[in-house]
């Protein structure tokens, strides 16, 4: 790596880490979570970046270079559809297969009990042995090829496990190499490592489905609670083993359905087990979590506040970031705040104004990272992304 690039990288890493710890770096770091924007900018179709991960990595590098990003996600189009093809997951609609090649992949959630990947009477089996339930019951339902222990075995089943495992190894290796290239070619930090899902979210997203869970919380609340408790240590371990071993960059929690439930339900089903995962990662493993608050999580700020100082970086999407800053700015770093509709429809001047305001209020004392509210997709205009960079460089220095 050229010496000057190494220097740039070290500066950016320091800037990123300092801001994450809610301290004052030399300048506000630019840390966009950019997905389909990168492929559009680099001239690739959604099918190309979803199916050929090297192109996705390359698209990110193009943007990281041109927009001078300090830190970014090495591949925000995180579902490599090659793995989906090999293992046979039914729940994705993939660009170039079921979707237009220019539309990003999407998760297709079963609409009813009949289609649910976990049935209403299977809570006990999940609770008793989560990993076995996933392998024996859940996977045969979500994969076109996998069969359960009660079925007669097939060649395709054996090969699906083989190819699924190999796919993840191959992808993991490629991500490692891409992180390195992002560093040596762009001087940009790969900003996030392992994934956390709230136990309740995973139950609602991938196991029962949101509509089914919405009824389970009334029909069998004790089982829902026990299932969240049973999933908790597994999801903690899942994040821990996928986290950056050098502990330079945080893991992230992709918050999903927690705002759709009442206070009582949040308190009972969502919060306790998620809180425990985040605290364990922080206190036992020294790992920070990006609290990616998709939607508006302001109403649960009182709970988020309970987390230990610096344990999270609070990413604000549709919430009021200024209010978030007032309430938790002394405890946690904050990221986000640039509206996605402005990036799509606004002018560079308008974007710069917003960025300036964010820097001068939320970023006033450090602990702020520049990013859009939600993940940046192909609707964002390049000139507006450029404006975000310019404003950060112009107004972001301390």
């Amino acid at each position, binding site marked *: 790596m050229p010496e000057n690039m190494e220097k740039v990288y070290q500066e950016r890493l320091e800037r990123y880490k300092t801001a994450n710890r809610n301290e004052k770096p030399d300048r506000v770091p630019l840390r966009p979570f950019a997905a389909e924007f990168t492929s559009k900018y680099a001239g690739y179709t959604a099918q190309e970046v979803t199916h050929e991960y090297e192109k996705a990595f390359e698209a990110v590098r193009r943007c990281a270079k041109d927009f001078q990003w300090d830190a970014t996600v090495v591949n925000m189009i995180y579902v490599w559809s090659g793995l989906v093809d090999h293992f046979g997951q039914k729940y994705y609609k993939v660009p170039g297969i079921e979707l237009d090649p220019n539309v990003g992949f999407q998760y297709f959630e079963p609409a009813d009990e009949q289609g649910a990947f976990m049935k209403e009477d299977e809570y006990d089996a999940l609770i008793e042995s989560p990993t076995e339930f996933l392998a024996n019951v859940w996977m045969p339902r979500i994969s076109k090829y996998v069969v359960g222990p009660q079925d007669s075995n097939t060649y395709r089943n054996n090969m699906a496990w083989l190819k699924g495992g190999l796919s993840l190894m191959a992808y993991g290796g490629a991500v490692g190499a891409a992180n390195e290239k992002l560093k040596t070619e762009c001087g940009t930090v790969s900003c996030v490592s392992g994934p956390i899902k709230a136990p309740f979210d995973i139950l609602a997203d991938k196991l029962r489905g949101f509509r089914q869970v919405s009824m389970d919380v009334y029909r069998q609340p004790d089982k829902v609670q026990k299932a969240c408790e049973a999933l908790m240590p597994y999801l903690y371990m899942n994040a821990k083993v996928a986290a950056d071993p050098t502990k330079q960059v945080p893991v992230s929690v992709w918050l999903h359905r927690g705002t*759709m439930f009442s206070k009582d339900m949040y308190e009972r089903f969502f919060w306790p087990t998620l809180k425990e995962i985040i605290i364990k990662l922080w206190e036992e493993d020294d790992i920070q979590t990006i609290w990616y608050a998709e939607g508006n999580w302001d109403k649960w700020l009182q709970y988020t506040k309970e987390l230990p100082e610096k344990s999270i970086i609070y990413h604000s999407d549709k919430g009021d970031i200024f209010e978030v800053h007032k309430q938790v700015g002394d405890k946690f770093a904050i990221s986000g705040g640039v509206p996605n509709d402005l990036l799509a429809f606004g002018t560079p001047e308008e974007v710069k104004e917003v960025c300036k305001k964010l820097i001068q209020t939320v970023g006033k004392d450090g602990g702020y990272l520049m990013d859009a509210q939600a993940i940046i997709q192909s609707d964002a205009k390049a000139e507006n992304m450029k404006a975000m960079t310019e404003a950060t460089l112009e107004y972001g220095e301390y």
Partner: protein
Amino acid sequence: MSNNDIYEALVNLEEKKVKQLVSQSLEKGMAPEEIMEQLQKALIEIGDRFEREECYVPDLIYSGAIMKDAVELLGPKIKEKGAEAKGKVVVGTVYGDIHDIGKDLVVMLLQNAGFDVVDLGVDVKPEKFVEAIKESGAKVVGMSCLLTISFDAISKTVKAIEDAGIRDQVSIMIGGAPVTELVKDKTGCDYYGKDAIHGLRFVSEAYS
């Protein structure tokens, strides 16, 4: 049993009790229309509570499921009667977007409120919307999306409606997590519903 028991039970989301009370009332000779009225009143109350943030999306989903089972009990007669619709509405998730939870919720609320809904499903091409508006003569069309990339599909659908020469006949409402007033203005729609209940309110006003 007082006349309001079914209403109360549904408002309180007491699934078994609703079923039990509906069956008992029918046995005792209560008119299905009267029961239906109570159920619909309860859903309106739940909608109001939702607006006041006293209840949430899962409550809407659960109440919809309870309602569905109750209407089953009332038998085919009331279903036919229910179909004497207050008006027609075309609803769909726009092209390139396959998310259906929000869209389905709007459909359910509209149907429960007595509207005749043409549900186009998800990933709906602009020309499909146009065709359905023409065929049904609906005065309102609702477009749903969950992705910011869908803004383009919204614009294209509005344009297709304009090109078909039917823009004046139809009010266009949009909804979904990433939608804002700005998106509504820039894509040329008439109304942005911040949630399913607001969508229902807009349709009700359009047909009042």
